[in-house]
């Protein structure tokens, strides 16, 4: 089997017509392939997130990770960019939706696309994955420990982030949620509240909470990494995308 992949920095039209940076990883075979928009975590558009995009490509997906901090910090190191965006109040929800819409459109425009696109996001990106799936027509979405889908951030915080659980009736696709039992943002109680909202709206979802894991258990570069949870989580993600994104398309 021919298994070559290619990964590169690209520029694509996003929210408001802005052209932003992204990292595209894709198989070199004809396909057709589903597309995955990889939404990076709050620490930014970094090496570990690009590795995730390449991993999806190796499993037969066209994966595009938008640099959500392109506008505030073009060409800067991920940590400086994340600090600048934090100081500026974070990524506005409306802009995030526009950037994901642009990334999804780019993926669908590829000659190897099967016209299906899903999202996956980590940390703040988990919330943003859910937000995108409630705002855009998608085929699958994965929320990895996204905080403040349910619940408000502490009073007085300068970050522009608020609860979006009220958007649940608009969820356009199946949702996979992966959480840590020891996480506080989101807490198990908040995950349960989201699950209740999904049930009330008769949405298709699949939630798993891992004992012994907290926030960011997929993050191989940090002490929060939990290999057993991450291995099982990856298996569930690939199975979920295999059911909803892979194949010939419609």
């Amino acid at each position: 089997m021919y298994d070559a992949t290619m990964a590169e920095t690209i520029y694509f039209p996003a929210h408001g017509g802005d052209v932003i940076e992204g990292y595209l990883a894709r198989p070199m075979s004809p396909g057709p392939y589903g597309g995955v928009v990889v939404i990076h975590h709050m620490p930014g558009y970094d090496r570990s997130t690009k590795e995730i995009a390449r991993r999806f490509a190796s499993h037969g997906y066209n994966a595009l990770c938008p640099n959500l901090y392109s506008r505030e910090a073009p060409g800067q190191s991920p940590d400086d960019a994340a600090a600048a965006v934090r100081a500026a109040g974070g990524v506005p929800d409306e802009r995030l939706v526009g950037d994901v819409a642009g990334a999804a459109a780019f993926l669908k425009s590829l000659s190897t696309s099967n016209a299906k696109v899903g999202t996956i996001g980590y940390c703040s990106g988990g919330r943003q994955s859910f937000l995108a799936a409630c705002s855009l027509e998608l085929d699958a979405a994965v929320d990895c420990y996204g905080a403040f889908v349910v619940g408000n951030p502490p009073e007085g915080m300068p970050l522009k982030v608020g609860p979006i659980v009220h958007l649940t009736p608009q969820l356009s696709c199946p949702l996979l949620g992966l959480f840590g039992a020891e996480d506080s943002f989101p807490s198990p109680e908040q995950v349960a509240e989201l699950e209740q909202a999904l049930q009330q709206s008769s949405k298709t979802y699949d939630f798993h909470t891992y004992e012994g894991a907290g926030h960011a258990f997929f993050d191989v570069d940090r002490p929060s990494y939990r290999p057993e949870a991450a291995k099982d989580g990856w298996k569930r993600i690939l199975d979920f995308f295999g059911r909803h994104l892979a194949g010939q398309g419609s």
Partner: protein
Amino acid sequence: MCTYLTEKTPVTGSAKGADGWFALSHAVVYYDHPAHAPAEHTLNIDFSNLGKGPAARVAVELTTESAEALVAAIRTTLGARPL
């Protein structure tokens, strides 16, 4: 957790970064994942000039105990200054 716990305060002073000294505009203080320190969460301070771009930043990531010790040291020093 990504705590989002962030405080931003204007400051007057200077910091020395990769390109030498620069005037500060703000200190952004947050308790969250570090980029480098070997801990799950740290007290992070970005001494920044927000008008000079993202690289005008001196960053520190301190364990909770170290941050408490730093606060105490600052208070002690300020308390002992000649009036």
